């Protein structure tokens, strides 16, 4: 069942929000111990919200999202509901405020089932850095679901929610979406408010929907997008009707195929799936245009300067003083800082704090951070140039399909390369989607990425919808 189908059943009262919510809560209770997609399940809150949703569905004040059970990545602050960010540091943290994203979802009547697992502070590509244990990929529980929104992706793949919210700093929505065979959208930087979303790298972080289809994602995005006075970096632009904009044909659409995203050593099955997808787009009326994004190879080093730099500063507030983990019996102030942070943060978070502190330190700033900002501009310019000639850009989402748990966790560089194809988009602030476009020999999902110009989420969703109308890949589900 998709979100759109469920919304229709709710609207016609063929099913109640309480029945729907109960069904999902039962499924979570059965499968979450295996998948570990949720850190917190809010039975009481969900049932309460479902009851209110039924009231709205009866009295005519419902929206299309009313009564829809969803999961929210555990870095969106939810008032009085534990928000851990996947970290021991915030294991007991109950925010006294609501993020703009969850506030909008609640106002629309969505039912939040719980908070989904994630890499600690969204730092990771496999969901193995979570303090609350790794998430298993529902397609093969010996494999990772991707990260950092691994819980949100796995919850969908295991049908534990009708939609989930993720966040994407370097691929954290798209990469797990690809590895779990679902649809994930990273909006334009500033399209969705970051207020109340726990920061990893402020200039790159963006919240977005994860769903079974582009049509479902369109509904969720419509609910959460828009300018927010509480976020000075959110964009003051009207939110188009994404659902209405969905099309089934792509006549006249020019799709750019960047050579830099098809390395010779690209996984052959992924290469094959992409080639087939290109043919589908041609059949839908689109034309394919080879393009070049020459600065692509600098994206990973640039990202691993800028993101850790911002993170090292964003995470300074976790000092054990006002909230969060504090070590036992500190000797003095320095001891309290050192041990609270040393005991409260995991290895990957500490690695990035060190990296970020280093690149910002005096004597290195110009060589690293300032230079990275210049390269970031060049990477963004590549895209602006390309979009003079094409409407969308098509690439693989990941270099491989889901890899086994433990495979790369001790090799940070190998792990960082998982985000090879997704990172440039964050540096350029562009909207991009991953949608399923095939499977490998083992049946593991393959995803492809589409990238659009600033604020052209409608074009992105429309193309994805056309593709999904013509192909069955998004309907594949893992064996229960």
């Amino acid at each position, binding site marked *: 069942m998709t979100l759109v189908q469920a919304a229709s059943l709710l609207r016609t009262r063929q099913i109640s929000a309480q029945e729907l919510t109960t069904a999902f809560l039962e499924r979570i209770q059965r499968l979450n111990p295996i998948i570990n997609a949720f850190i917190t399940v809010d039975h009481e809150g969900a049932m309460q919200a479902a009851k209110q949703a039924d009231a709205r569905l009866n009295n005519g004040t419902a929206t299309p999202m009313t009564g829809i059970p969803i999961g929210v990545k555990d870095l*969106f602050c939810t008032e009085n509901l534990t928000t851990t960010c996947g970290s021991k540091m915030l294991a007991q943290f109950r925010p006294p405020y609501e993020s703009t994203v969850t506030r909008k979802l609640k106002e629309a009547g969505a039912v939040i089932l719980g908070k989904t697992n994630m890499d600690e502070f969204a730092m990771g590509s496999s969901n193995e850095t979570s303090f609350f244990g790794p998430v298993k990929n529902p397609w093969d529980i010996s494999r990772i679901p991707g990260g950092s929104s691994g819980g949100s992706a796995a919850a969908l793949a295991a049908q534990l929610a009708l939609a989930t919210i993720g966040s994407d700093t370097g691929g954290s929505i798209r990469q797990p979406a690809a590895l779990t065979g679902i649809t994930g959208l990273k909006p334009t930087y500033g399209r969705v408010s970051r207020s109340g979303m726990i920061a990893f790298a402020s200039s790159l972080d963006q919240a977005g929907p994860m769903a079974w289809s582009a049509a479902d994602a369109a509904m969720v995005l419509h609910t959460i997008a828009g300018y927010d006075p509480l976020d*000075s970096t959110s964009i003051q632009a009207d939110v188009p009707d994404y659902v209405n904009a969905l099309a089934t044909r792509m006549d006249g659409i020019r799709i750019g195929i960047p050579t830099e995203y098809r390395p010779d050593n690209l996984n052959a099955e992924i290469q094959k799936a992409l080639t087939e997808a290109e043919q589908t787009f041609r059949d839908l009326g689109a034309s394919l245009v080879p393009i070049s994004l020459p600065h692509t190879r600098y994206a990973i080093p640039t990202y691993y300067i800028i993101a850790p730099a911002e993170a090292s*500063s964003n995470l300074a507030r976790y000092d054990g003083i006002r909230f969060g983990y504090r070590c036992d019996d500190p000797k003095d*102030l320095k001891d309290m800082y050192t041990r609270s942070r040393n005991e409260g943060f995991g290895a990957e978070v500490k690695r990035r704090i060190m990296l970020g502190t280093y690149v910002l330190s005096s004597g290195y*700033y110009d060589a690293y951070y300032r230079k990275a900002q210049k390269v970031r501009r060049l990477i963004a310019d590549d895209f602006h140039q390309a979009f003079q000639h094409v409407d969308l850009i098509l690439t693989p989402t990941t270099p491989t399909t889901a890899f086994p748990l433990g495979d790369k966790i001790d090799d940070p560089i190998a792990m960082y390369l998982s985000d090879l194809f997704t990172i440039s988009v964050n540096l350029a602030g562009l909207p991009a989607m991953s949608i399923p476009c095939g499977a490998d020999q083992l049946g593991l999902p393959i995803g492809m990425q589409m990238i659009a110009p600033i604020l052209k989420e409608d074009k992105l969703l429309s193309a994805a919808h056309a593709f999904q109308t013509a192909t069955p890949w998004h309907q594949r589900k893992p064996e229960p």
Partner: protein
Amino acid sequence: MSHDPLYEMVIGLEVHAQMRTRSKIFCGCSTTFGAEANTQICPVCAAFPGVLPVLNTELVQMAIKTGLAVHGKIREKSEFSRKNYFYPDLPAGYQISQFELPIIEQGELTIERDDGSHKRIGITRIHMEVDAGKSLHEGIQGASWIDLNRTGTPLLEIVSEPDLSTPQEAGAYLKKLRAILRYLQVCDGNMEEGSLRCDANVSVRRHGHTKLGTRTELKNLNSIRNVMRAIEYEANRQIDILESGGSIVQETRLWDANINASRPMRNKEEAHDYRYFPEPDLPPLVITQQRIDAVAQHLPELPDAKRQRFVRDLGLSEYDAGVLTATREMAMFFEESVQQGAHPKTAANWISVELLGRLNRENLEIEQSKVSPNHLGRLITLIQNNEISGKIAKQVFDIMFETGANPETIVQEHGLKQVSDTGAIESIIAQVLADNPQQVQQYREGKTKVMGFLVGQVMKATQGKANPTAVNAILQDKLTG
């Protein structure tokens, strides 16, 4: 305390001025001073996870005003940066400040030196930043308390060029800057309460040398007097070191006003690498020329302009104009008195002699005066209209100062109205002449000095209320007639 004439001082001041915005710089919390600890905080200023700063536009207006007042260049595009360091009263672990692109650059103000000459002092930059909270180490042994009420209070940091050459110039600069900030109503300028803070960078060099000496930074200077003393002390300390063949260590030193000396801050307290980088949560601040023009239109008249106008248009002396424009409140008091019809020179006299004299004796500020400018203006008008004499006016003023009552009522209630009715005065004079035949005789014999005595008798008989001009004229007439 005078330094070696072979040396000259090079002084630059960094002033932190708390802006009087209604709410904090990045959230809606109140900025009122003195509230119970941690009652004026929210998730934003306490830096809870996920919250974001939203810039207070009132602060930007105040910064533009200040920039215009010191003839600075207001950047079309300025940017906020993070200054990273750990301290318990800095909840985010970084201070949001401006670093590479401050809102204002290249300003200046003019100070008057002790010899009356003027000197232009450059202002390198003015930038906006956020104040930290307070750590309290009193109370329970081994514990510290954090009060975050002040966290998020907006500051302007105003950095001068090293153009100041004496402690007196530094004092004059601070006084001038404080007056401007108060005229603009953007800052209380209260150094004791910390709403205006000053650090001083001091170095010395031999006269004629152009190369700057090694400087030290002085902190904890909580009055203009302490700023001047600390600079004097520091210059002498540096000269002593140089004269004995030593060299100056670049360091930060804390002034201790109790012992009139400074000591170096421990290295730990200052060894920071702040790792500045542009604040990603705030877009660059863009200020259009229209916005600057709009602020400029509403800029109040500033001390220098007012002072010149008082001399040029109202005929005040340079000295009086200086006294009356030293603070915004004083100037307003004067101008309001004049608006009541008081002659400017007379009003200036009354304010600087009578009012300020009394206020100083009682240790009061002009804002605390029970005599309102309106009442003082009316009192002076009564003199000008010959309704009371200057002497009576002083009696009336004393009552006004004590009670705050208006001058007309006081004159009425105490029957102090001047007698100008010539008939009444004539009959009193007739009586005085009759009572003092000896003096009348002396006058007529040419001892015209007794005139004073006779006038005095008339005034005494009328309890000072007789119009002295009329008394003089009539007496003259009677005695010579």
